[in-house]
């Protein structure tokens, strides 16, 4: 039997639910791809209003090809998360184009629920999570419409009056059940199938290379990277350098990481977890998912958790990428240089490497300083900073592009306009030219304090790059050449680069703080609720999750409680029934006869009882017969409720007669 045709309302609800889901994916879908799909949906909607037919195969088939080609063209590997999701969204759109029957609608709605949950792989913010309630609700309303057989109305969607009660009742049961299940469903301590590094790509954030423009992109991005709490008070803002990847290699354009010729280094496995000294600065970081392994910490990190390693260049690296909100506690020795623990000669060699033959003018300048000042790193650093401070340099987030082969020469002697990535890079080139080992460090600087939540939030717009030079006997010492040209960049990070409106718009700033505090709360309590937190939660209730019996009792008890709640709600609703008016009148009649000692038997119908009563009370036989007849007619007869007046009259007559008799 063929499935019935979707009527226009069912189709519209289906389309609405799918479109609302598509809208949620706009956060990451390339706009032109989304626009293409939206165009198809609009065309389909208009077409179906005029002529309810599927699109012919000579349109559909090429469209499938186009969608898949676009996906591969945009994302490359069609099996990665983004490409796979984009392909699914595209094919679902095409399915809508040929959906004429109810089973197609049901299929699309089920896939839409899948797309709702896939969305959370991209973003788990509280705003988007609340929004996702809309597509979910729409899916169920569409299912409700589709479940209504042809010619009848779907209840929830079309009946506002009944909608209220039925929906409230549904939610009153569904919400506790959902939350209970959410808490009780056992979380996995280890994933069942793997999530390889770099499989999920292209979340904005620090990359492990620095090429022109890579930081500019970040500076325009306001999304939080992490939130930090300092239980013992924060350090000075000017020492909040959140350390990310350290870049050694320079090819004239791009800076990249180096593996110091040692397999351990490649693994990032240098130091295991450490506790740190008791008087070191303690802080608690809640990192947003970055799909990267960097754990951004202050220099010099001395205490860090299991699963993290401190690499030779002083950055903290996690064993697995941070794919969901991750909280850790760390300790740092503030502003301490990064010690050269091992491989000193390799580090020195890498710290002096320059691309051969490039930037001759810069090198000549650096060598002249060297001849002048000898090999004292401090004096050379001071000289370079003075050069930047006094050489007519300026700070700009949109400097003229550097295009030639000798880019550092171009920057240092011609444009003289740039921001942290230019200054850090140029400074390191100068230092290396002068014979001082140096390297670029990328990360974030500062953060903004949230007064509502009493934490610091670091955003992508706080991205920064600075330099480190090797000082014998001390280690790698931080030098921030940008501070020489724009000290306010250091003191008021965020406000300076990110286009923060906060300084002039106090209320907006305060609103933003509030919103962010809610997001932080959400991250801490919902997003981060994992295996360990579940154990904590249950042990807080006095339940040992290792003991299946205790856990079973808890789950059974919880479900029973929700069952009771459901039963109570339904019972209340049942009690409120108005009752059958004919039956109510008939009961009055029965009450009166009961006084005469007459009661219908268990299986005695109104007719039989009426005859018996008439026989027992011959004086009332006529009124009794009339009441019974009127009752039968009103309750079971064709006239239905139109028979009520006759029943009332008959009942009144019966009452009068029995009173007279009584």
């Amino acid at each position: 039997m063929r499935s019935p045709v979707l009527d226009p309302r069912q189709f519209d609800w289906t389309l609405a639910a799918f479109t609302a889901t598509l809208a949620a994916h706009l956060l990451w879908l390339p706009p032109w791809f989304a626009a293409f799909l939206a165009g198809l949906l609009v065309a389909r909607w208009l077409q179906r209003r005029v002529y309810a037919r599927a699109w012919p195969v000579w349109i559909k088939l090429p469209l499938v090809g186009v969608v898949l080609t676009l996906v591969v063209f945009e994302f490359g590997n069609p099996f990665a998360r983004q490409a796979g999701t984009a392909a699914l969204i595209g094919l679902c759109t095409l399915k809508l184009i040929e959906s004429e029957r109810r089973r197609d609608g049901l299929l699309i709605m089920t896939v839409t629920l899948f797309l709702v949950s896939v969305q959370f792989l991209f973003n788990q913010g509280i705003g988007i999570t609340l929004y996702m309630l809309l597509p979910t609700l729409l899916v169920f309303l569409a299912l409700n419409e589709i479940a209504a057989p042809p010619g009848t109305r779907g209840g929830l969607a079309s009946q506002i009056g009944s909608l209220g009660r039925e929906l409230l009742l549904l939610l009153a049961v569904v919400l506790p059940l959902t939350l209970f299940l959410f808490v009780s469903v056992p979380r996995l301590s280890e994933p069942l199938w793997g999530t390889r590094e770099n499989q999920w790509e292209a979340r904005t954030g620090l990359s492990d290379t620095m090429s022109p423009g890579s930081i500019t992109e970040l500076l325009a991005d306001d999304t939080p990277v992490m939130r930090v709490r300092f239980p013992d008070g924060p350090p000075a803002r000017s020492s909040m350098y959140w350390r990310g990847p350290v870049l050694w290699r320079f090819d004239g354009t791009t800076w990249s990481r180096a593996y110091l010729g040692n397999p351990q280094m490649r693994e990032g496995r240098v130091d295991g977890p450490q506790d740190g000294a008791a008087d070191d600065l303690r802080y608690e970081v809640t990192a947003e998912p970055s799909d990267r392994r960097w754990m951004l910490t202050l220099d010099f990190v001395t205490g860090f958790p299991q699963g993290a390693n401190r690499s030779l260049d002083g950055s903290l690296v996690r064993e697995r990428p941070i794919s969901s909100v991750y909280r850790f506690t760390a300790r740092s020795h503030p502003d301490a240089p990064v010690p050269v623990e091992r491989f000193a000669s390799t580090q020195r060699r890498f710290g002096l490497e320059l691309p051969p033959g490039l930037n001759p003018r810069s090198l000549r300048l650096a060598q002249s300083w060297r001849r002048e000042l000898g090999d004292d790193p401090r004096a050379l650093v001071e000289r370079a900073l003075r050069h930047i401070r006094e050489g007519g340099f300026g700070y700009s987030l949109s400097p003229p592009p550097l295009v030639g082969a000798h880019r550092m020469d171009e920057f240092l002697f011609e444009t003289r306009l740039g921001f942290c990535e230019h200054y850090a890079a140029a400074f390191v080139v100068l230092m290396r030219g002068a014979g001082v080992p140096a390297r670029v460090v990328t990360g974030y600087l500062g953060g903004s304090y949230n007064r509502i939540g009493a934490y610091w939030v670091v955003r992508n717009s706080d991205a920064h790059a600075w330099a480190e030079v090797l000082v014998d006997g001390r280690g790698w010492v931080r030098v921030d050449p940008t501070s020489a040209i724009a000290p306010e960049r250091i003191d008021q990070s965020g406000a300076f680069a990110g286009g923060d409106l906060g300084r002039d718009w106090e209320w907006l700033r305060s609103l933003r703080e509030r919103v962010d505090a809610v997001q932080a709360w959400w991250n801490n309590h919902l997003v981060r609720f994992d295996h360990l937190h579940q154990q904590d939660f249950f042990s807080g209730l006095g339940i040992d999750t290792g003991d299946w019996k205790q856990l079973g009792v808890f789950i059974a008890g919880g479900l029973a409680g929700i069952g009771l709640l459901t039963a109570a709600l339904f019972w209340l609703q049942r009690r409120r029934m108005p009752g059958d008016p004919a039956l109510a009148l008939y009961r009055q009649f029965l009450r009166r006869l009961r006084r005469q000692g007459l009661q219908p038997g268990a299986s005695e119908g109104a007719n039989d009882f009426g005859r018996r009563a008439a026989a027992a009370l011959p004086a009332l036989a006529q009124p009794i017969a009339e009441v019974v007849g009127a009752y039968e007619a009103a309750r079971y007869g064709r006239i239905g409720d139109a028979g009520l007046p006759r029943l009332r009259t008959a009942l009144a007559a019966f009452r009068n007669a029995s009173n007279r008799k009584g």
Partner: protein
Amino acid sequence: MAVAASSAVPANWRERVWRWLDQRLPSLTRRHRHERLPITLDRRRIYIVPSGFGLFFGAMMFAILAGALNYNNNSALLFGLLAVSLGAVSMLQTFRNLDRLSLVQVAADPVHAGDPVHLAFHLRCEDARTRFAVTLTLAGEQRHVEIAPGRTTEASFALPSGGRGWYTPAPVRISTTWPFGLFHAWSWLHSDARVLVYPRAETPPQPLPRLPDPGRISGADPGDEDLRSLRDYQRGDPLRLVAWKASARTGELLVRQLEAPQARETVLDFHHIEGLEVERRLSRMTRWVLDAERAGIRYRLLLPETSLGPDVGVAHRLRALKALALHALPGP
């Protein structure tokens, strides 16, 4: 043993399975037993299973939850569980969409054999909830109704009536997948309601038999019969009414019309109709009953087992038609 009311539809495998179940597990199917109206549905007689779509939905939910757990993605898990909870509670709602729903009456007027039986199933909520998208299935036909509380809603079917006698409707399947189509709940309504099917009234109509006036028929010369009071012979006419002379004149067999305007009474005698099989006699008598009523002529109905009247009027007509409908049929 001709039970005219049973359905003439050939039994396919599904019907056979049901018949077997009815015999073996009557308490499970409740199709077989006739019940007195009103029939109120309750949890003991409502069956519910996941629909095909429900199973597909469940598989998808399983995939979503497994993925959410694996990636430790709590938002996805939360939404997966929300959908699962909605689905689970919808099972209760599907059940409640039938629970405490009553079939209060099956209304049907008697019909003549060959005319469709119009059955109206009157449904009523026993509480204050509206029942949405309830489907009644009978003899392969479906009716979809929404039943608001406090009044009676009817679903009508027109079914072939078969032969004369008591027509007992097959069990009605009442089902719903409301609200989301994930579950399918159903029950059987097999009321003891039955409909009387009268014999088919004969066409073309035969004139009513005149009350026999023995003196006139035997004494008078049939020769001077006026041609206007003659009509064509039809099978079953008594031979003594044949106007032999007139027939000889015209070359066609003619019989005398027994219409006497003053005679307001007649006898409809089963035995008086000759040369016809039983059903056709009944059919002719049915026509006569209707014609006599229309003309307001008192009539006596004579059947082998009964004799009714002479009388005229609604009650007499109903009695007469009932007697004709049930002539020589077993049981009540």
